[in-house]
């Protein structure tokens, strides 16, 4: 699968692990686990050599993994529908309150016309929804150059940049 990562189209190098998978069946390489699997198998998962990612549901509180963030090279946040905007605040919380520097990935109903907002709040990679043109999606990032507010991409509001 192709994804957008830091505005580049690349092949996805992560595998998502089913909650039913036993420890013995865990593949090598970079894997993404659910919060439930992480809570159940934490020790075994950190003992692996390869990078670990975690996938949160929109109703999960990112504060619940705050202490564990150094274990994750990737946090995946979900858009069950593009209208469900909870993941915008989850991403912002991760960057702003928890200083998370790793990859934050958007998955689900991820469309061109929301990418700019997603990037602003802290998402860095995007699994573009099936049926969408991933090349066209790249055009969605820079349509609006003026940003009044501070966010994860821009620490100062516009008025402070105006006078700076």
């Amino acid at each position, binding site marked *: 699968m192709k994804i957008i990562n830091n505005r580049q189209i690349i092949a996805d190098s992560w595998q998502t692990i089913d909650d039913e998978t036993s420890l013995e069946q865990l593949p090598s390489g970079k894997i993404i686990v659910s919060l439930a699997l992480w809570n159940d198998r934490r020790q075994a998962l950190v003992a692996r050599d390869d990078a670990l990612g975690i996938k949160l549901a929109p109703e999960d509180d990112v504060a619940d993994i705050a202490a564990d963030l150094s274990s994750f090279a990737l946090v995946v946040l979900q858009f069950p529908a*593009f209208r469900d905007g909870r993941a*915008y605040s989850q991403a912002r919380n991760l960057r702003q309150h928890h200083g998370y520097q790793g990859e934050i990935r958007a998955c689900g109903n991820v469309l061109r*016309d929301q990418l700019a907002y*997603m990037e602003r709040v802290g998402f860095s990679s995007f699994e573009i929804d099936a049926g969408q043109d991933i090349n066209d999606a790249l055009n969605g990032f820079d349509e609006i*150059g*003026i940003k009044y*507010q501070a*966010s994860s991409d821009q620490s100062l509001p516009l008025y402070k940049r105006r006078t700076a």
Partner: protein
Amino acid sequence: MNTNPLPTTAINKTKTAQQPGIFVYDQVDQQLIDERVAQFRDQTQRYLAGRLSEDEFLALRLMNGIYVQTHAPMMRIAIPYGLFSAEQMRMLAHIARTYDKGYGHFTTRQNIQFNWLKIEETPDLLADLASVQMHAIQTSGNCIRNTSADPLAGVAGDELEDPRPYCEIIRQWSTLHPEFAYLPRKFKIAVSGAQKDRAVTLVHDIGLSLVKNKAGEIGFKVSVGGGLGRTPMIAQTVRPFLEKQHLLSYLEAVLRIYNLKGRRDNKYKARIKILVGSMGVEAFTKLVEEEWLKIKDSMILDQAEIDRVKAHFAPFAYDTVTEQTVTNNPAFARWLEHNTSDHKVPGYRVVHVSLKSPQAAPGDISAAQMDTVASLAEQYSFGLLRSTYDQNLVLADVKQSDLFDLWQALDAADLATPTIGTLNDMICCPGLDFCSLANASSIDVAADIQKRFQQLDYLYDLGEIDLKMSGCMNGCAHHSIGHIGILGVDKKGVEWYQFTLGGFAENEAKLGERLGRAIAKTDVADTIEKIAQVYIEQRQPNERFVDTFYRIGIEPFKGRVYENN
């Protein structure tokens, strides 16, 4: 396509540069709305070419003000906090002529709507708007909407501080805010700076009122969770005093909690009022304050920025002449009494331009009237206009010596119906005639009522009565807080009207009490007449309708309205 020439700019540039009285965009502000037009043009083209689904385009067009209504697409254009210039009003006239059927409709949130558009022309329309620093950004959709304010901001005698600079600061913060574009539901903020709340802040998702603390500092009282619609609620105080420097961090904290915790499974339970109601205001406040403590120091609103924005709204250099208009023209005297109000500067009056002519639907204005009001604003009121919560316009800074001339011009344009604040100055939504949500018509019922109470002496004798009529329970006309509220409902294809009495829109806002079973369409005007009779019989000297109601309760009204069955 847009074939009409753009209106020429008649505004005096030198004068506006020195003393705008309105927020004037610099090139950065302008670039944003220009880029927004280009973005929407591309989205519309992709939609028309079948590359953007109906559902995906829906969310995008809503955030550019476009609904698809009964007859055609409707566009709601933002008038930030109800303040706009003569030049902008001329542009609205141009839009009415070029893209619509020659008129527009002002809303309770101080915006204007056009009802007869073509989707493929809307990008051109937005480009025309952008040429005069206007837009339709976030006038619909589940995002932060246009911030509304006291229409008498800056000229009212009871004002602690002008709320408009804060509205503009909120406008900029909320415009294309990346985190809050896909909220559970729409989100409305209103700001009041006066003792009397003319911005109905307590029926907004966030109501801000400027208050003074014991130390004499001015800050905001923050109320959250007001809203009308199916489950009308009055906002509750979450913070009695917020320092100005924390305005944006506090708003951000409220919105973040709402975005994460608000219900998304049922659109009728998705407004923040439901979240506050279900958690309880204490628990909600606790979450907000915890979030706020984390972000407040990184989001300080600098005094320099407040001052920069404030400079745009600096008071005009008023003349000191206090010449009174002397005339014995009775029609002028009526208008003067009912359609003008006090200005904080002696020698000036605030003029309320009535959009409640019996000849037109409440809030409607024709392109010719728009041009007329634009010219009158330039001639008599520093080139500025305001739109009001009660769907009228205001010329806020008129010299007393100009009032007679202004009245004649307004009267000639059918903009001087002398009924401001009376029963006939009703708030009314477009109803079934235009709106795809409506269950019942409101415009023709409004016309019936206005006709019934056309006797001015009778109308004046009834005094201040706030009548609000919505064509469905979404409550766009705020019927729940009308002294008399009327809600249109559909029962098996027949239109019925439910009455509430005793609602109140100002400070200490109250929801009306239901009178009884719904009334048939043909009996609506009769019912109001009966309610008025009870008031006339029972009132004490100088008692307003709503005060009589609070004193005697609903039973006498109920008894009269339902006495024969």
